[in-house]
């Protein structure tokens, strides 16, 4: 079924378009908006929709989608967990946290739990090195992590929606 935005999201898209001198500049913000409205992934329908709305070719939009890490080209879990494993976090135990998460969730990095609830990923530098180790869960940062704290966070995700 073709993708479309609801009225509130359409209003947000109009607001985004009003910020720029041309429509193309809205490409990335529009893709974010649509991705969120499409269970956090960019399908071919989403690409076609954005291309049509912004008067771009689907090839251009596809090119943008494939360039950036945060556009999901497959449907992820309901929650997305990124554990930063770049140097400052690694110096404070990030690699152990990654292994801990893999064990706790029963998945490897890049995979989603069988119930479709959580996708585990590693991140390259989340710019929170002074409070390492750090992970991002959906839109929130969790800093100065310990394995106990990670367990509490994952428990809440597993128990919650």
């Amino acid at each position, binding site marked *: 079924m073709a993708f479309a935005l609801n009225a509130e999201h359409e209003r947000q898209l109009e607001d985004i378009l009003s910020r720029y*001198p041309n429509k193309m500049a809205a490409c990335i913000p529009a893709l*974010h908006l649509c991705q969120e409205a499409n269970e956090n992934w960019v399908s071919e329908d989403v690409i076609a929709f954005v291309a049509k709305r912004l008067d771009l070719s689907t090839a251009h939009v596809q090119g943008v989608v494939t*360039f950036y890490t945060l556009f999901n080209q497959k449907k992820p879990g309901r929650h997305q967990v990124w554990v930063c494993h770049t*140097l400052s976090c690694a*110096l404070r*135990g990030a690699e152990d946290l990654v292994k801990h998460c893999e064990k706790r969730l029963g998945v490897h990095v890049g995979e989603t739990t069988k119930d479709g609830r959580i996708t585990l990923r590693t991140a*390259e*530098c989340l710019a929170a090195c*002074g409070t*390492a180790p750090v992970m991002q869960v959906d839109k929130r940062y969790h800093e100065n992590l310990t394995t106990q704290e990670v367990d509490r966070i994952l428990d809440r995700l597993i128990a919650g929606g």
Partner: protein
Amino acid sequence: MIKLTNYLSHSYGKPDSHKLSAYEAAGGYRGVRKALGMSRDQVIDEMKKAHVRGRGGAGFDCGTKWSFMPKEVKKPHYLVINADEGEPGTFKDRSIMELNPHSLVEGCIIGAYAIGAHAAYIYVRDELHLSKERLWGAIHEARAKGYLGKTPFGKDYEVQVYVHTGAGAYICGEETALLNSLEGRRGEPRLKPPFPAQYGAFGNPSTVNNVETIAIAPTVFEVGGDEFSKLSALHGLNDGGARLFGVSGHVKKPGLYEAAVGLTLRDLIYDLGGGILGDRQLMAVIPGGSSCPVHLADEIVNSTDPRLEPYNGKPFLDLPLGVDTFRNAGSMLGTCCATVMSDATDPVLALHNVMRFYRHESCGQCTPCREGCGWIERILNKIVDGKGSIVELDQISEIASDITGNTICAFGDGAAQPALAFVRKFRKQLEDYVHTGGKSQTGRLTL
């Protein structure tokens, strides 16, 4: 010498510090009033006097950069703020956006006025959701008060500020990649020239400034350019004022510290940072983000720059952190956020970690960088597994040298520099991996 300041950080740790009321109660939006009372040229001159060296890593003088914009405004000019912070080890801009967003908004008005722009775009990396929320909040508050809009502070000079977001790509911190990304394209760097001041955002004259560079502008006008510059111990080297210093890794008190320029790595690690975790010895430090060369604890300054003569023969840790002091001592200041490694760190694993980052983040546009970063990582994969050879170890330096200077943007050099420095300074440890699988190394990055 440590001279702590709080121009940007006065609000850190205070409740509601991101709100307009708190910002104004602390004296906010006074600098912009002074700036708008001056002519455009006077604003640029004042900024030049302050010697604010770009805080994003390149260290270019902010006032000079502003002066490159065409005097006559024939097409719309744009101010673009680089808030795509993501250089490993760097974490200062986020604190400004989350805890003191109005300083950036105020700075945007000053910057836009100085370069003849009526619109400023703040390009924030997507992961920083709280930063975006706080910036939009600050923009809405400033608009409601009339500080942003048609007549900021009664001046007939429209300024609008917008938050734009990326989608996860370190390369978009490179200014021309950022401009492409702002325009809705893949974030691939552009060839220079033309420079952004001639052909920037949407093909129009543009200036790209770092968050901290713009956020400190209100302070410059509040205290005066000269006065601000003289806070710095390196005022004589045209490296003025105060800035945020970060320290992360194996220190007891990692975090951000705001201080006058002139601080040394020793001050940052042992005084502000509280010393090495577990009271271990310092092995090495990367001064300002992972693109900078790594330095051993016992390195000695040996510079041909006559201005650095007083530091020659003295420990590198005692060299004041400045753009030119570091550049002319064979290093790079970068973002002034140091990553500290104790003697428990396995330097081969540290290099492997850093090079994995560059392989992941190379945009793929230029062959030497795309192929070279991948090649170096693959060699290091083998070395870490104890399956590498001395020939391959030597290849790392060759590949890195072949990347240097052969790419469109500075990412290539930024990826090559750590490889070259680690291989030169930790040759023994790398050879140990080749010969014995790293038996004498710790095999750990954590303590």
